[in-house]
């Protein structure tokens, strides 16, 4: 019988692709919302402003939903209107969260359709709490790098970011990034020894050489708007590859609510509801792999437990990366124009060494090129005309460091279901509290970064550092951890559930520790590892 995979995010598609390569039949069930066709795929961002009939509709949305107004209380993600489909989920699945602001996706490719491409393998310190040796993941990192194409360089960050095979050359730098890197090279000794700060090239899933039918990045400046040439990898590309296999069956347009099992708790079917509405369907499953993303996978498991036993357990250990945004101004760029045809996401990244290697702080350094500036200008305390003048003058100097912090599993950070007393599914509920030392860690890293940026000729404007709410890191994990201990609601090192036979969990729910890095590359690699070892 076919192996059923739930979800087409990074874990699901790489798990499926590995199984197909091993000769298995795979059925992938997916809500599967698809993006609109790319508009004028060979044009740069500014050319769209000149050549589209109604450019404001493209950039701001038909209902101006892309305009960021000061009264918007939610965290600003800068997601363009035509990428909002990624985050649209039915009202029935709305959750309640305390201290956490989660995002969900029904998109083909999942939340990674909106990722920034960061590919940073975990090192042996960061994998110390995983119940398998770090070397077990190395071949999987190599395999994923070969499939998706990663550009970067082995440089000063190598002690923190292990090398892997199939690394393409790095993306070209813009002028501001180049100035930063040159200054870093001149001041390397003091920055490394005095501040514990290291700077290097980003490793991103963006091509600098052709790979299959994908072309290298042509620097259209449209990364945030959705790479129209597929140079920036997204999981839907792997889904398309899976669709070429005769052993692959794709069931889009439905979302899985639970799975059924027999008296011996062996999984035998999944229950799915059509996204468009209608009666649930049942799909037989000999073996089931949950790859719906940590929170959705947790929801499916909890719902299945509730339906089979009436129990409503609370799962602890919810994790996400705290992110702190540190804007800076590279004063050497003052008065210089920026090149609009450029890679839009980060081309540099940095690491801050701390006492415990696993608690390394990772930062993504983005120098501003093409971007909507009305969200920036309105942040200044000036009237908008003056703010516009200042923003124009400073535009090419502006940059942003997104500092990421590690997280640990703590049992009081829980996810559970709350019955609603109507026909709707019980509501997914979660509560999160940061660790007691978080404030100190954030302050320390921000202080180190401010000082290091000053040495690099950059200033951090006062009052502009912003700690994003938990949940906005979108690196959810930890609710069904892989462990060697035989405990309920955990998974074995091969991702198999200790509670249900025939069930494996292949997404971030199984991570027992969350380093300060983008986890998508490791999600894909771990899914490959599980498919290779458990099937």
């Amino acid at each position: 019988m076919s192996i059923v995979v739930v979800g087409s995010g990074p874990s699901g598609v790489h798990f499926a692709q590995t199984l197909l390569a091993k000769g298995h039949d795979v059925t992938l069930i997916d809500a599967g919302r698809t993006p609109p066709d790319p508009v004028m795929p060979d044009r740069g961002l500014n050319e769209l402003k000149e050549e589209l009939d109604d450019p404001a509709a493209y950039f701001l949305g038909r209902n101006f939903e892309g305009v960021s107004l000061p009264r918007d209380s939610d965290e600003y993600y800068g997601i363009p209107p035509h990428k909002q489909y990624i985050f649209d989920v039915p009202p029935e699945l709305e959750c309640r969260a305390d201290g956490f602001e989660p995002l969900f996706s029904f998109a083909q490719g999942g939340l990674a359709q909106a990722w920034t491409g960061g590919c940073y393998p975990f090192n042996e310190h960061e994998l110390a709490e995983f119940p398998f040796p770090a070397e077990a993941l190395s071949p999987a990192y190599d395999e994923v790098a070969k499939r998706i194409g990663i550009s970067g360089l082995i440089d000063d960050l190598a002690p923190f970011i292990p090398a892997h095979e199939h690394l393409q050359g790095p993306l070209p730098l813009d002028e501001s990034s180049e100035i930063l890197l040159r200054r870093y090279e001149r001041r390397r000794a003091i920055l490394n020894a005095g501040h514990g700060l290291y700077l290097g090239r980003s490793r991103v899933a963006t091509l600098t050489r052709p790979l299959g039918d994908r072309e290298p990045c042509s620097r259209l400046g449209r990364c945030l708007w959705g790479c129209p040439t597929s140079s920036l990898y997204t999981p839907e590309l792997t889904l398309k590859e899976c669709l070429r296999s005769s052993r692959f069956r794709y069931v889009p347009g439905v979302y899985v609510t639970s799975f059924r099992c027999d008296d011996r708790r062996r999984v035998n079917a999944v229950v799915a509801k059509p996204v468009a509405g209608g009666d649930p369907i049942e799909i037989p499953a000999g073996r089931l792999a949950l790859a719906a993303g940590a929170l959705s996978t947790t929801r499916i498991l909890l719902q299945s437990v509730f339906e089979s036993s009436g129990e409503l357990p609370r799962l602890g250990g919810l994790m996400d990366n705290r992110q702190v945004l540190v804007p800076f101004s590279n004063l050497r760029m003052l008065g210089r124009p920026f090149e609009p045809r450029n890679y839009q996401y980060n081309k540099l990244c940095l690491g801050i060494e701390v006492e415990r290697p696993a608690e390394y702080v990772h930062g993504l350094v983005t120098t501003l090129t093409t971007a909507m500036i009305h969200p920036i200008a309105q942040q200044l305390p000036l009237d908008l005309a003056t703010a516009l003048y200042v923003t124009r003058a400073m535009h090419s100097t502006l940059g942003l460091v997104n500092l990421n912090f590690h997280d640990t599993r703590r049992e009081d950070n829980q996810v559970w279901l709350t019955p609603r007393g109507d026909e709707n599914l019980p509501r997914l509920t979660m509560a999160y509290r940061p660790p007691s030392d978080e404030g100190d860690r954030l302050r320390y890293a921000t202080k180190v970064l401010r000082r290091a940026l000053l040495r690099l000729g950059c200033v951090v404007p006062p009052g502009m550092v912003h700690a994003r709410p938990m949940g906005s890191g979108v690196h959810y994990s930890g609710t069904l951890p892989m462990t060697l201990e035989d405990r309920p609601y955990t998974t074995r090192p091969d991702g198999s559930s200790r509670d249900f036979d025939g069930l494996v969990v292949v997404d971030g729910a199984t991570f027992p520790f969350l380093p300060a890095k983008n986890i998508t590359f490791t999600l894909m690699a771990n899914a490959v590892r599980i498919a290779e070892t458990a099937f």
Partner: protein
Amino acid sequence: MTSFLMGAAPSPYVVQKYREAHGAHLGLNAQDRFERLLLSLVRRPGPLRRPAAAYARAFAPKGAVQAKLIVLLAILESCSPTHVVIDAPPRRGAVSLALGVAARGLVWLVALVAGTLLLHPVRWWWRRRSEG
């Protein structure tokens, strides 16, 4: 208001999109008499325009005046030819530009003080009357 932001008149496309934005439930309509006054001052070229805009940003940052200006800026930066002006730095050397930024900052400060001295009493008086 385009002339306030850009020093030039809006194109017909910008006017059309700005009108459409007002039908999009963005809360762009003035809520009270004082907001209408602020709006009329910001719309009209003259010495009170900048003090009114500075006052709106400082004391009514979520009000209709600031929202209208932001929506207008968003439209202007989305289309040609205004995006070219918005994307380019003012044509000056680095030192001259830094001085220009400082000078604009000074003008803003004067405008804010003037706006506060002129408009705060009006706001206080109208609020008192409406409450009384």
